[in-house]
């Protein structure tokens, strides 16, 4: 296996606030290879954005407690100086955001913003930077870029603005593009165009992409691998195909059930995930998903599940769930045919005390003592 | 005698407005001023020596506001008269030495008053010359013209009622018209024929700036304009003149900014008693902040302040600085008139009870305390003719208005109430008595104190707060409004004559039922009236004695609570030998000098 472009190991990002310690990211590990795409999926507050911002060095506030390691292209980013991080940001790693209107400075022409981005990493003349900006705007499909370069952000449509953002992000040939909900604020038709564009550019420019979204539908087409995050942890990780075909975490099931899919029967109801994301200050004990999990047992509230290989066909597939593997598979088997969780529960018996093998060892005094 | 004989000094500085905004008679947001000399009263500085002064130097006066007018025919405020007094000479004047005496200035000697008190003849000194560009001797015709122009709309003289001359127009004339009652038999004589037998008070009024000579041939083109532009072309006859150019235009007068007085080269000291030590007097008329300018005067050199400093500075002056101020009586009294036509105030014993129990000290405190003036024991103010005759500071000796009950004597009040038929010593009626006052301090504060004094004796007071202006004109001066007590009243002299202080305010025959009434208590005592009629014909010491007696009689009637005899504190720099003008209660430029 070649050395990955980005390797995140045991990354923990906590923020000290007046209300308490916010455990935004709580020990996650993932890696992205050159030119490849990783999807990070989760609800807002799951830590997916914070982890990416940390990669960018944008969470280095006074109240942030960061540990673990982030290795990018052979460099340790966590220990890099602020000045070094500045050269990485917008240089080798670029980022685009959810709302392209609010993410562009309303008072500056888009050309100036692109030029600024280019010139802050390359010692080139304004004219050269401008040529580069026009080139990039053309590349992202902005019509008549030579003229539109002197327009202000508010003069563009949402999709065009996101194209501008993408042009700005890619202007310095980054090795990694982090796209944080790049389509959420856009119309459905435009969403597809933007995703296509990202994919196209990724291939052309050989850029690795981390696609952050709450919408599994978005990553389905685009990414090779998917990490599902919940409450600051990765709860399931695997190849995209695996995640869609044989998901093993009840949260992933919930995500899948809550999006319309072409491969499920038409009359099948969309089932939203019950409850709300947990507070990151007072996380639930045991499996932090347990308050929302339809298959919860008392024991799940005491043991914190680790991310373990599922032992399935995909060797990279890992899950953090306390349900025994066979129970998980029977449950999914029911769910994928269109049954609701309630219906599935009628058919599959959830063992009260039998946990997944990795968790079995933890059920001793430690748990009892809690 | 219906006109207010009041003089008003506009005080426009903010601090002065808030601290001194006066509740004085009929004035609109103004503080009154005027009068007398400097020896009695607990003054610091005392009476400066008027004989020994060093010649030369430039004095700067910091004033909060401009003079009203430089034109001697138009000015009616003390600030204007202060400048005019240095610049122009009047028939008579009042020197710093004796504030009760009028002295001849342009006049050769005392006025000759005919036996029927209807003719006044004045001889004038030779050798008095107008300043450039007129440069000729002053004649009696110049004074005649000054009177005639006073009565025109163009000039707008403001105190015509003091001069009931035969042939004087009843309303202002368009353009200057001759007055038949003024004749000039020769260049050194002027004769006034009067409509009534009022020659004595007429003669006393000849100190007013109306008697400043105005050269007709020079002033005519200016007076032809409406309004007259003589105000910026005034020609001097006194020791000083406002810097002017060849045409007489006053280049030294910048309206609202400064007035620059320099020596009048044509002034001959031999014709004038005044020493005129200073070479130049610069008046800054926009020294807006009284706190700041007071401090500047105290800390600086060659500076004087135009009028009272703010209360805080006053305290500092009296207690710390000590030798840089002069106190002069303002020549007036502040009073709470009691409407003698309203029951039970028609009962003299009720009024005496009110006076007896009244805490005058507290009322004065509401105005700023002891620095603002003395506590009266009668009406004629200190150093005014008749003041001593009426009992001086100790008063005429009535127990209900004496030094002993300055803070009120409730036992004495109760005894008077018993005499009035209220055996409990308190008033037992349940009706409300209307008291009107200004809606701003100190008028408001002092009236609140006063109302409390009445309530001590069982009177239920209804205090009505109205705008400053209408306190007088719409309420207190209108008998039909049945105001029981006026909460913001004051009476200040225009010139030195006791009649002008007591007649409009207490003579029964001056009560004006339809408004504009100045006899606020509506006192109608035939004995007082008869005494006044008789006294108005007297002259000299007899006159002062008679009016002093009248003051006693009025006080015996207890028609009002006088609670402050105002005084003015004048501030100067250390190196200034300041001499106050007793008539204006302001610094006198012609006696003041620099060490």
């Amino acid at each position, binding site marked *: 296996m070649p050395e990955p472009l980005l390797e995140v190991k045991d990354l923990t990002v906590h923020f000290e606030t007046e209300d308490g310690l916010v455990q935004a990211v709580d020990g996650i590990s993932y890696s992205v290879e050159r030119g490849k795409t990783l999807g990070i999926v989760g609800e807002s507050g799951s830590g997916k954005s914070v982890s990416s911002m940390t990669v960018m060095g*944008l969470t280095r506030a006074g109240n942030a407690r960061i540990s673990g390691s982030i290795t990018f292209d052979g460099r340790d980013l966590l220990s890099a100086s602020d000045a070094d991080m500045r*050269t990485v*940001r*917008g*240089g080798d790693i670029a980022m685009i955001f*959810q709302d392209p209107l609010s*993410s*562009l*400075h*309303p*008072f500056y*022409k888009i050309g100036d913003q692109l030029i*600024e*981005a280019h010139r*802050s*990493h390359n010692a080139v003349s304004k004219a050269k930077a401008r040529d580069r900006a026009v080139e990039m705007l053309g590349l992202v499909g902005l019509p008549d870029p030579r003229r539109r370069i002197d327009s*202000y952000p*508010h003069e563009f449509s949402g999709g065009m603005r996101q194209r501008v*953002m993408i042009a*700005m992000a890619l202007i310095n040939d980054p090795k990694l593009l982090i796209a944080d909900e790049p389509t959420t604020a856009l119309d459905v038709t435009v969403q597809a165009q933007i995703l296509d564009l990202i994919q196209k550019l990724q291939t052309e420019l050989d850029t690795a992409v981390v696609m952050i979204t709450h919408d599994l539908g978005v990553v389905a087409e685009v990414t090779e691998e998917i990490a599902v995050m919940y409450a600051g942890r990765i709860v399931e990780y695997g190849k995209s195909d695996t995640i869609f075909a044989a998901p093993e975490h009840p949260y992933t099931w919930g995500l899948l059930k809550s999006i319309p899919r072409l491969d499920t029967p038409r009359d099948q109801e969309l089932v939203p995930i019950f409850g709300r994301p947990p507070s990151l200050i007072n996380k639930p004990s045991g499996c932090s998903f347990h308050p929302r999990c339809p298959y919860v047992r008392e024991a799940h509230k005491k043991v914190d599940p680790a991310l373990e290989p599922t032992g399935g066909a995909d060797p990279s597939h890992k899950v953090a769930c306390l349900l025994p593997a066979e129970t998980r598979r029977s449950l999914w088997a029911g769910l994928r045919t269109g049954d609701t969780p309630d219906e599935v529960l009628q058919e599959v018996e959830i063992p009260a005390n039998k946990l997944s093998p990795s968790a079995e060892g933890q059920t001793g005094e430690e748990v009892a003592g809690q | 005698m*219906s*006109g*207010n004989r*009041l003089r*008003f000094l*506009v005080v*426009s500085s*903010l601090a002065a*407005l808030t601290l001194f905004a006066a509740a004085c008679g*009929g004035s609109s947001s103004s503080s009154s001023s005027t009068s007398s000399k400097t020896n009695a009263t607990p003054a610091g500085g005392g009476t400066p020596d008027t004989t020994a002064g060093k010649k030369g130097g430039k004095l700067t006066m910091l004033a909060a506001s401009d003079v009203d007018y430089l034109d001697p025919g138009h000015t*009616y405020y003390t600030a204007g008269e202060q400048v005019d007094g240095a610049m122009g000479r009047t028939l008579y004047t009042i020197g710093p030495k004796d504030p009760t005496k009028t002295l001849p200035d342009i006049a050769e000697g005392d006025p000759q008053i005919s036996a029927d008190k209807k003719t006044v003849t004045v001889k004038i000194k030779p050798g008095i010359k107008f300043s450039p560009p007129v440069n000729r001797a002053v004649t009696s015709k110049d004074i005649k013209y000054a009177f005639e122009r006073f009565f025109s*709309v163009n000039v*707008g003289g*403001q*105190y015509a009622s003091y001069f009931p001359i035969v042939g004087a127009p*009843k*309303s202002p004339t*368009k353009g200057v018209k001759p007055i038949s009652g003024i004749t000039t038999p020769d260049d050194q004589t002027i004769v006034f024929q009067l409509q009534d037998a009022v020659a004595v008070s007429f003669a006393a009024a000849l100190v007013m700036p109306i008697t400043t000579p105005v050269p007709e041939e020079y002033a005519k083109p200016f007076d032809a304009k*409406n*309004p007259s532009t003589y*105000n910026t072309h005034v020609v001097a006859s006194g020791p000083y003149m406002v810097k002017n150019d060849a045409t007489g235009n006053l280049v030294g007068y910048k309206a*609202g*900014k400064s007035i620059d007085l320099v020596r009048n080269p044509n002034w001959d000291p031999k014709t004038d008693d005044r020493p005129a030590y200073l070479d130049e007097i610069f008046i*800054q008329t*926009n*020294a*807006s*902040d009284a*706190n*700041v*300018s007071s*401090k*500047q005067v*105290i*800390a*600086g050199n060659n500076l004087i302040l135009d009028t009272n400093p703010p209360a805080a500075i006053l305290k500092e002056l009296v207690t710390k600085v000590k030798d840089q101020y002069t106190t002069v009586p303002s020549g007036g009294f502040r009073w709470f008139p009691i409407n003698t036509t309203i029951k039970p105030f028609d009962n003299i014993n009720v009024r005496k009870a009110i006076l007896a129990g009244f805490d005058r000290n507290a009322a004065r405190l509401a105005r700023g305390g002891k620095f603002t003036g003395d506590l009266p024991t009668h009406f004629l103010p200190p150093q005014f003719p008749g003041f001593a005759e009426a009992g001086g500071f100790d008063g005429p000796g009535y127990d209900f208005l004496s030094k002993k009950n300055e803070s009120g004597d409730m036992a004495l009040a109760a005894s008077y109430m018993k005499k009035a038929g209220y055996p409990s010593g308190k008033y037992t009626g349940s009706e409300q008595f209307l008291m009107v006052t200004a809606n701003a301090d100190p008028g408001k504060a002092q009236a609140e104190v006063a109302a409390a004094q009445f309530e001590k004796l069982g009177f239920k007071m209804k205090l009505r707060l109205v*705008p400053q*202006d209408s306190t007088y004109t*719409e309420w207190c001066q209108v008998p039909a409004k049945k105001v029981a007590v006026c909460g913001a009243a004051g009476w200040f002299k225009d010139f030195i004559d006791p009649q002008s202080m007591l007649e409009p305010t207490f003579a029964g025959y001056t009560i004006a039922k339809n408004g*504009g009434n100045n006899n606020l208590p509506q006192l109608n005592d035939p004995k007082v009236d008869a005494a006044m009629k008789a006294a108005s014909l007297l002259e000299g010491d007899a006159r002062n004695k008679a009016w002093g007696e009248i003051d006693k009689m009025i006080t015996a009637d207890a028609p009002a609570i006088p609670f402050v005899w105002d005084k003015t504190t004048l501030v100067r720099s250390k190196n200034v030998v300041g001499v106050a003008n007793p008539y204006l209660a302001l610094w006198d430029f012609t006696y003041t000098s620099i060490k």
Partner: protein
Amino acid sequence: MAAYIVRRLLWTVLLLLVITAVTFLIFYVLPSGDPAKLRAGRSPSPETLAAIRNQLGLDKPLYQQYGEYVWNIVRHFDFGNSYTNNQEVRTLVFSRLPNTIFLVLGAATIWFLSGVVIGTVSAVARGSFWDRLLMGGALVAISAPVYWMGLVSLYLFSDDIGKFKLLPGSGAYQSAHGLIDKGHALILPWLVLAAAFAAIYARLLRSNLLETLSEDYIRTARAKGLSERRVVLRHGLRSAITPIVTVLGLDIGILMGGAILTETVFNIDGVGRLAFDAIQRGDLATIQGTTVVLAFGVAIMSLVVDILYAFLDPRVRY
């Protein structure tokens, strides 16, 4: 844009008409406001009053007086003559306007710059000792009355009555000649007038900047790898300062009507004192003149601000 400016100017004219009419009416409704009475001295005879009314044209119908008044303003910018000292109001106002402008623009420069610097430092160092010190100081400056502050500054620093004789004090401006001397004489008044404004602007800027710094486009700027300095100054401040420029314009416009207290304490012959004195004396002509100048100042400055805003914020188009 041109059409907008023309439209705005027309509105300004209308506004000025309304303002003159309102001052006119208020003055006539006020009981003490009869200028003839004010001019006539004490207890005038009815004849005197009538004569003065005639002279001042006060016996004409109100609409005619108003019409003539407005017509004179339009033709000659003539506000008539002061009722108290008979000077041309136009001359009075214009002789004082430069003083007020000098005072206000100098102070505005000081308060704007210091407000922006203090606000920025405070926002960037949010929650720190400096932030607390600066904002605490700002609160004091806002709460302190200008008049009191003026007196204290004079008692402390003026070269005549001060404890530490450092700077020219009250009245120095009037006797100063030449721009440099005058500027020197204005240092204390500038600081006093600017203090409260600077404090308000600092607080305003601080909260604006904090808000701006949490905007998405600031995150974008950081993600672009810009230096923090550039992020704050070029991206943050640029947005945070825009609303303050509007406020600044209006504040300057309003102060064209005079900074009465500062002008009073420091004895500066400005429009404010002219207006104040005129109000005290019931001098309608001068009150009108200064009011129109004030209204004019506000109207023009708000127009300037709106036009400026279009340049500052490209989203705004007229």
